[in-house]
């Protein structure tokens, strides 16, 4: 089993904040744990002493140091991913009090204002759980490679000056470049369904990876990849591969699978105009299709 809270994803967790309430001596943290891939998940309660300036990362650090549940049972520390702690890497994304967001920027004071005395943590539900709050986001990166979300340039040789980018183009590209591949837009998307495969007996790692990639490629590619395709198609150098990116968006699991729920743009922590990217990609792929029909 796993907990999902799609109904409450409509907020991106950046509400305006009220004043400070009196601080509790401690608060409870309910965590949906899972010991390994494919295993049963279970809830566990931890008591954490209140400190000022806490975020969910520091809560998990205290839980790791204590490694004891609220009932006094010794347990292994809860596993979670994190890296930059500044909401620019996306690694610490999880579902906090029903909202998908980064745990580094989830401030305890704000969470306790919204729901006094308790914080609930669950892993993202659209990706296979590795352990506890760690999930395998490789499908997300596979989608980026499908749309060639990069500019193919060999920096070792001097190729001369590149094309100039206008201030206007730079300003429209910058918001899209803020994507940190966190997966919030995918967690909130009704078309993006979890794909989890198990390695078969006797199946080599290579064969398993290949089978996984094929399964991922049949699923919806996701708003993040559509937006990145638009970012690089807008770049004067990236334009060289524009047609290939559009073809990737028109393949199985492509932009046609988008159901226009618009949850993605509502949950994006970087406020990236994802639905604008999707609309632009829709137009561009239509033009591309017509061009292909008429052999242009």
């Amino acid at each position, binding site marked *: 089993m796993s907990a999902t809270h799609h109904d409450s994803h409509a907020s991106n967790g950046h509400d305006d904040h009220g004043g400070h309430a009196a601080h509790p001596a401690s608060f409870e943290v309910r965590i949906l744990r899972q010991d390994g891939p494919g295993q049963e998940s279970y809830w566990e309660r931890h008591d954490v002493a209140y400190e000022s300036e806490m975020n969910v990362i520091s809560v998990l650090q205290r839980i790791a140091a204590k490694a004891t549940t609220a009932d006094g049972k010794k347990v292994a*520390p809860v596993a979670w991913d994190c890296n930059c702690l500044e909401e620019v890497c996306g690694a610490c994304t999880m579902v906090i009090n029903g909202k998908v967001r980064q745990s580094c920027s989830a401030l305890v004071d704000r969470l306790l204002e919204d729901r006094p005395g308790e914080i609930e943590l669950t892993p993202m539900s659209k990706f296979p759980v590795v352990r506890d709050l760690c999930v395998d986001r490789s499908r997300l990166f596979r989608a980026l490679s499908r749309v060639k979300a990069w500019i193919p340039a060999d920096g070792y040789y001097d190729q001369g000056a590149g094309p100039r980018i206008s201030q206007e183009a730079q300003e429209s590209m910058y918001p899209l470049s803020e994507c940190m591949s966190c997966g919030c837009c995918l967690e909130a998307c009704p078309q993006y369904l979890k794909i989890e495969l198990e390695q078969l007996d006797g199946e080599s790692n290579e064969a398993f990876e290949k089978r996984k990639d094929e399964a991922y490629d049949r699923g919806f590619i996701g708003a993040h990849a559509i937006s990145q395709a638009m970012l690089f198609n807008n770049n004067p150098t990236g334009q060289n591969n524009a047609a290939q990116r559009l073809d990737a968006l028109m393949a199985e699991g492509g932009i046609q699978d988008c159901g226009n729920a618009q949850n993605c743009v509502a949950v994006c922590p970087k406020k990236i105009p994802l639905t604008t990217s999707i609309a632009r990609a829709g137009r561009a792929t239509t033009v591309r299709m017509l061009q292909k029909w008429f052999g242009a």
Partner: protein
Amino acid sequence: MRCSKVHPTAIPGADKLRLMSESARGEGGRVWVPRKPQDLRDPLTVPEAERFYFLEERYPKYKNLVPRDIATREIFDICVNEGLSVEKDRQCVYLDLTHIPKAELDRKLGGILDIYEKFQGVDPRTTPMKIFPAVHYTMGGLWVDYQRSANGGLQVGSPKNQLTNIPNLYALGECDYQYHGANRLGANSLLSCIFSGLITAPGIETLLKGQKQAASELPSSLFDQARKQHQSRHDALLKRSGGGENPYLIHQELGDVMTKAATVVRRNDQLTEALAKVHELYNRSKKCSLSDTGNWTNQNVVFTKSLLDMLPLALAILKGALQRDECRGAHFKPAFAFGSLKATEPAARRQEAEQWCDRFEANNAKWLKSTIAQWTGDDVELTYEDVDTSLIPPRPRLYGLVGAEDIEKVWNERAAKKAAEANGNGTPAAGKLAAAAH
């Protein structure tokens, strides 16, 4: 390794002190505290006359643009020694951007201001930020070599460039000790990343061309042995019986000791005490027991291994700092600081400036050296390496000193004299070794 950059302007947090970029000062941010200690008024209502813009007053020439180590030291001094911290229970000063138009702030500093707002819940465009220094960077790292060219530069293509003391192991980027000296300068991480990357690749190409044997042709026992060594360390950690030391708590204690003794201000009594304490933590860390003994995504064992590696580094930093009785860059020992000139009468002042320069030269002869720390298995051993100053001769750093112009004048005269002598002799004096950092 002994010098740490302490970033002057950081945002407090329980898990991490987040950087507030130096561009906030660069774009006109003003650092101040209310003249009245722990003035509880809304900062915007504190009249100009009751604000202490201490960087502007103490450094009228550079104002809020003083180098980072000086800004850090002054903010530390204002809070710790002068008791002028904005808050009572927490040390912080104001970094104020509210006088700059909002549109300009959004255009120039939008990203960093969003970070402050995100992690503090306060808009820095309309409310002065509260900041305090935090450790940010280590001006040290793995020792690496380089091939000196005939004209004193770097021989491009030499396999010695960026080579560590372990054969064929290269270190490049922030993990190596090059370029920074005792102080980190702006954008030096970019320098070490781009420049080291650029010069190392041709060197490795030369190395590979001269290599007779590929790694894959070496006996497999070599790799198996190394693997076995690490596997047994890993297994031994997992097998430790419970009830021992908690690695997370040792980590916390280590952080507290190091922050207190080895960051902004260093004093030999505190360093000696810290060294004893870290030796104790090192011994305790040998008895760490794990709360997770499994083999799947075990973050507990990864954390413990990192902690075990941090202790030798902490000992190296403390020992290096303790031995170095001087001030250099971010390594600040007030007991050994060169003060301002005191004499007012021109001849006496001139004489004092001469003495200041003599002392500076004598100090450089002793300490213009890189500290090299080696782990001997249970402790740190220090040696020193000369710094090659043949291309850029050292000169005194005189920020904020009374009599700076007099000292500079004497120094320039001496430098001119030396240059004339060197020209007479033909070649400039060459330093013994290549490394630029110390």
